């Protein structure tokens, strides 16, 4: 059994695997991250059956927290399986912050948070802005401190899908990319290591100053979003809101009452960046 450990923001992971290759890939991409002593979560990448360990090997995810009926992945996508496993542990088990499915970047001690469904562009926007003067805080989860309301970084490998891969290859010229994994359940995927300042400052929180709901693929537009609607959308975007009880309620209500929110439509990264800069100047 091979093992790999990594600290990302406030969470420590231990990943065990019967195969060495996916862990070698992880170790290479996460080489600048701290190594924790005591893990918060343990994840195992296991073979579906003894035979399948060697013939068309297939990876099943097992860990402290699991979703039943998750389909196993081929070994070439073991890196993806490990990332998905870490996501799952956070989504199901994290209790120290309110967890939002969102991306975030930081500037001047303030956080820009972007949330939406798959395909809205929140990951790609965070990746883009993180290479254009902002500090990348995360593309999958935003953690909101239950006492202070600050956004806490969780900068895992950036997960780029389909067209975003090409866009970031052109933008992050010094970036370190993982292997291309074509035709996964989510399309073509390639990981990008976050910029060095994102890793170096992963313990530094930021006060949320603007919330955006991006929609990729429409003519540029901006709409204000009222607190009731923001609240409803954020409870949908949070996997642990209900489990957090009263603290979750007070944290989220304070968030929707204090953080301005806008829905933005855009056709490309240039439009998006312009809208972001405009709204940041107005609201943050």
């Amino acid at each position: 059994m091979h093992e790999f450990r990594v600290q990302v923001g406030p969470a420590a992971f231990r990943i065990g695997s019967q195969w060495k290759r996916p862990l070698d890939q992880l170790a290479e991409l996460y080489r600048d991250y701290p190594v924790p002593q005591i893990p918060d979560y343990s994840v195992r990448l296991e073979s579906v059956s003894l035979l399948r360990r060697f013939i068309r090997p297939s990876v099943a995810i097992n860990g402290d927290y699991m979703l039943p009926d998750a389909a196993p992945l081929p070994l070439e996508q073991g890196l993806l399986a490990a990332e998905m496993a870490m996501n799952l542990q956070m989504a199901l088990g994290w209790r120290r912050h309110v967890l939002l499915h969102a991306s975030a970047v930081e500037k001047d001690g303030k956080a820009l948070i972007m949330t939406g469904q798959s395909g809205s562009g929140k990951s790609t926007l965070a990746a883009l802005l993180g290479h254009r003067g902002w500090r990348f805080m995360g593309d999958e989860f935003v953690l909101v401190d239950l006492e202070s309301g600050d956004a806490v970084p969780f900068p895992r490998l950036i997960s780029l899908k389909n067209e975003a891969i090409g866009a970031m290859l052109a933008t992050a010229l010094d970036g370190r990319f993982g292997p291309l994994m074509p035709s996964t359940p989510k399309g073509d995927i390639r990981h990008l290591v976050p910029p060095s300042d994102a890793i170096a400052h992963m313990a530094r929180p930021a006060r949320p100053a603007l919330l955006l709901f991006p929609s990729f693929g429409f003519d540029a537009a901006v709409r204000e979003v009222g607190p009731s609607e923001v609240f409803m959308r954020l409870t949908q975007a949070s996997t642990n809101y209900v489990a957090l009880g009263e603290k979750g309620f007070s944290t989220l209500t304070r968030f929707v009452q204090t953080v301005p929110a806008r829905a933005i439509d855009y056709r490309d990264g240039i439009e998006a960046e312009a809208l972001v800069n405009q709204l940041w100047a107005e609201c943050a």
Partner: protein
Amino acid sequence: MDDDTKSPNPLNSPTSRRRALMLGAATASAIVSVRPALAQSAASVMNCEIPVPGPHGTGMNIDSYGKLVPRDTPGSFPATGQKFTGEQVKAALRGRSLPGTSYDQSQAYVNYIRRLQSGQSGFTCYASLQMSR
């Protein structure tokens, strides 16, 4: 987004002018409970209505994609601001036609509703339907 209407009555003194209260229908729920994100929700639909089109679309037709288009656009459907309840729209999202409409017209109306954005009449109602699924 406030759907209240004020009805100033010169016979009332200013101190007795009251805000209108939307009581809704007896059968329409006014409460949605937040359920765990990974679980199914059984909460019933909010007390709300969605006009098709809303005031911003008065005098326009709706095409099959749900966009507002000029009245004489071929293949588009007339719309008079008819109001549908959250429950009717929820059923329509599952395949039943909106009351008083043909299948194609209902599809167009549902697409219109799907495109509603914050600030437009009916949006909060539609958003709360999403919550209760």
